[in-house]
């Protein structure tokens, strides 16, 4: 029935004179459970289902959605969109056009072994209790008196069609685990997460992803590592220029915040100006030098089992790997069909939406710093005095993506090529050109974590991977909180 309604919506929009139309049936099912201090809270289930339609009519772009799935309601929705677009077109200063793209007919899905629908809440709670039991005690003299553990899955199913002839059917299950803990040492509380930085573990696929993470062993091991941060009392160097090694979790976030976001073409053209902000990049800045030759960043939606996995975007464009920064130069922006038309190129398939009632907008998928050929030990050996920021908690960046800050959680002094004492809350507050210009080495050890990227109005939290290896920055200022 949903496919018929999607086709019906396209026909209706064409009949009414739309220059372009696309319709998307989307069903997003989410089931999650929360264990708090060892006690299960009520589980949550969200079943969102409906049809979103977007048209271009007289140069105006209109989006609308309904969850009343009948021909009558779809017809009424199209009437509204056409009428709204007509009204807007009267005062439109710039007509919207989409790039011409190849039509695709395909059925695709994320690879899945253990179907998520077969996983009961009972087994999720059981898993969380197993993990919780490893944290409910003292680990290296640190206790975790408050523990919030979450596990769950989402199934995102779509049928998409547009007036170009694309017909795409997809299914992407995603699984996830996250936690927030209060760590206590000598009466001093500190909120932490595993992974640090409020990141999530998981990916797209079946529950085997969670099984393979072996969380009841992994989480306490990570908790033990974090105890060094919880116990740290030595202040980080204050306003001193030195060398820094960033752990994979930190470098991963920098790729997202200070390369992926500023490279979104809709921001570059000002479309997100009042919300997510704009960019220090301008259309003519493609090719600009932003950093050293070691600055290498990509975004790839086609990575199997990644949180941001997809084969076709929500404008029907085939997904490809994007080389965002190559040898220190911006070489590609993230494009949708409207921005691609402006740039006179083809879209690179970056348009996504998280639910049927949201418009597709440009999103990152899995953004990462490409791995290099160094080992961590080789990087370390060449540092006389520095700081190793293995993980972080606090971070932010200005809305042009020029002025960023990462505050370390697990962090250590480096002296004469060796990791020394832990230091508390070192602050890396640095401009984007200085950051990318200071990288002189990338390790081989690329790691990914899951994150939710916020953008859009209304807000859309998109599932992504962020990735990176250990990287070394030369001669940067580190401060103290």
């Amino acid at each position, binding site marked *: 029935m949903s496919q018929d309604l999607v086709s019906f919506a396209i026909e209706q929009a064409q009949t009414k004179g739309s220059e372009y139309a696309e319709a998307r049936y989307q069903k997003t099912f989410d089931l999650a459970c929360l264990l708090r201090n060892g006690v299960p809270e*009520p589980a949550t289930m969200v079943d969102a289902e409906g049809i979103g339609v977007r048209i271009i009519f007289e140069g105006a*772009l209109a989006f609308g959605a309904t969850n009343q799935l009948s021909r009558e309601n779809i017809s009424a929705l199209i009437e509204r969109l056409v009428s709204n677009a007509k009204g807007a077109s009267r005062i439109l200063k710039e007509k919207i056009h989409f790039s011409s793209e190849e039509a695709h007919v395909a059925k695709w899905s994320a690879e899945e072994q253990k179907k998520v629908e077969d996983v009961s*809440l009972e087994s999720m709670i059981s898993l969380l209790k197993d993990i919780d039991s490893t944290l409910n005690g003292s680990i290296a003299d640190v206790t975790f008196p408050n523990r919030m553990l979450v596990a769950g899955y989402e199934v995102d199913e779509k049928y998409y069609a547009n007036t170009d002839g694309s017909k795409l059917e997809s299914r992407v299950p995603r699984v996830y685990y996250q936690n927030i803990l209060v760590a206590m040492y000598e009466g001093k509380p500190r909120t932490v997460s595993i992974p640090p930085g409020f990141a999530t573990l998981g990916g797209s696929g079946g529950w085997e992803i969670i099984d393979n993470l072996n969380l009841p062993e992994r989480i306490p091991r990570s908790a033990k590592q974090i105890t060094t941060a919880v116990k740290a009392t030595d202040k980080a160097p204050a306003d001193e220029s030195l060398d820094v090694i960033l752990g994979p979790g930190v470098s991963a976030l920098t790729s997202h915040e200070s390369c992926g976001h500023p490279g979104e073409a809709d921001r570059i053209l000002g479309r997100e100006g009042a919300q997510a902000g704009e960019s220090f990049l301008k259309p003519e800045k493609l090719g600009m030098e932003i950093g050293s030759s070691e600055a290498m960043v990509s975004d790839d939606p086609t990575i199997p089992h990644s949180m941001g996995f997809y084969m076709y975007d929500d404008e029907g464009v085939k997904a490809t790997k994007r080389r965002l920064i190559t040898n220190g130069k911006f070489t590609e922006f993230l494009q949708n069909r409207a921005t691609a038309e402006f740039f006179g190129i083809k879209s690179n398939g970056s348009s996504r939406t998280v639910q049927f009632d949201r418009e597709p907008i440009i999103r990152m998928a899995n953004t990462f710093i490409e791995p290099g050929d160094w080992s961590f030990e080789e990087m370390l050996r060449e540092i006389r005095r520095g700081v190793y920021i293995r993980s972080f908690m606090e971070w*932010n960046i200005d809305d042009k993506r020029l002025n960023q800050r990462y505050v370390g959680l697990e962090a250590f002094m480096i002296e004469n090529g060796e990791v020394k004492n832990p230091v508390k809350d070192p602050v890396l507050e640095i401009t984007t050109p200085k950051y990318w210009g200071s990288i002189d080495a990338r390790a081989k050890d690329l790691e990914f974590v899951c994150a939710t990227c916020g953008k859009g*109005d209304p807000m859309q939290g998109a599932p992504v991977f962020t990735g990176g290896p250990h990287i070394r920055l030369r001669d940067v200022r580190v401060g103290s909180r």
Partner: protein
Amino acid sequence: MTLVSSKETGPAQLEGLAELALAEGKNLGCSDVSIIGEITNNSQVRFSNNTITLVNNVQEITLEVYLAKDKKRIVGATYNPSEEGVKKFVNNLLASCLSLPENEDYTPLPPGPFAYRGTGNFDTKVQDAEIVEFTGEAIDQALKAGANRVSGSLNTSSSELLIRTSAGAAGKDHVSMMLLNVRAFADDNASGHGLSCSSYVSDFTPGKAGYTAGEFAKKSLNPKLIDEGTYDVVFSPTVVANILPMADEASAFAIESGTSVLIDKLEERVGVQIFSLDSYGSYSHGLGGRVFDDEGNPTKDTAVIQNGTFRNMLHNCTTARKFGAQSTGNAGIIVPHPFTVVFEKGEISLDNMIRDTKQGVYVTNNWYTRYQNYRTGEYSTVPRDAAFKIEDGELKEPIAGFRISDSIPRQLSNIEFISTERNWIKWWEVETPTLAPAMMISDVRITRAVGS
């Protein structure tokens, strides 16, 4: 031009679906069933570079369903408004619920019926508001004030809500909102921000918001960097609403989870004597709000911080039982939360506040507030749009490229002035409708990035 929105979906359909879900839950043997039904009609105009980039209309019927059986609990939401879909959802919800262990915190829903305070902030005219024209007015005024580019979004929403519970609660609510978020640019490094947030068309002032944004943009041309250090900072209402989230901190869930700065502080002094903050269900002629909470209790007005002393947590029935208190009508089935936040006003005008600050900084907007430690409230946030140095009690040169790095407890103890003027705030960085004043907080730490 009015954005066309469908009106054929009536309250009768919503009521029928809610009754159906309630009956299904009860027939399946649930001890507790709570249904909140909502019809929403949201329209939006998005604009950037002085032109409209999208017109948007989304109409939905949703049901939020809470079930408890044998002390097992689950909460869900369905967007399938067919009878068959609702029945199926309730059955699926219960099947999942029964695979959970018993919940030792189980507390029955409060016995009704309840008398609710009419309906909330609602204006029938909002649904038919001329939002394309309002958008044009905001853009024109921003340009007139000195901007050369204007971006933003104008959103209207009209909602009909109802509640039915197995404990006898039954009620209705209507809520409307008009939200304009406008950002004006005089050049790439000079921007200003304006908001107009209202439940009533008559209170909506898009031209004023646009003009404010444009004026700030013009005044922000050629901003300078500022030295790191501690400053007396005047924060606009928009910033205050974001950096002092004390009603959220007062949620019993946050306190029990150990993630609040207010843990173990009940009846203790947490801020200066001039600082008071309340949680309202529905503030008369205010913005948004609710007359009932998710458990069916009538929402209430609760003093959270009174003259600097932490007076009340925000509770649902479950947290209230655990803390030996009464529900404050702030359910969330899992997390009690405010529906409306009201900072009490101060005794000084914003102009006089700036005059009396003498040397300092004025911050009009911010974003990206993130915490290093929730428990201690250590955070940083990034000012955006217009900011100025204050010298000799006057706004002087525009500044940019800095960051506020501070902690909530320290700020609460260093509030020097609170303005008489208050604005309704709801936008990207402030989710709960909040009536906020400007504030001057002393000795705020300012940092900035290094590098060209």
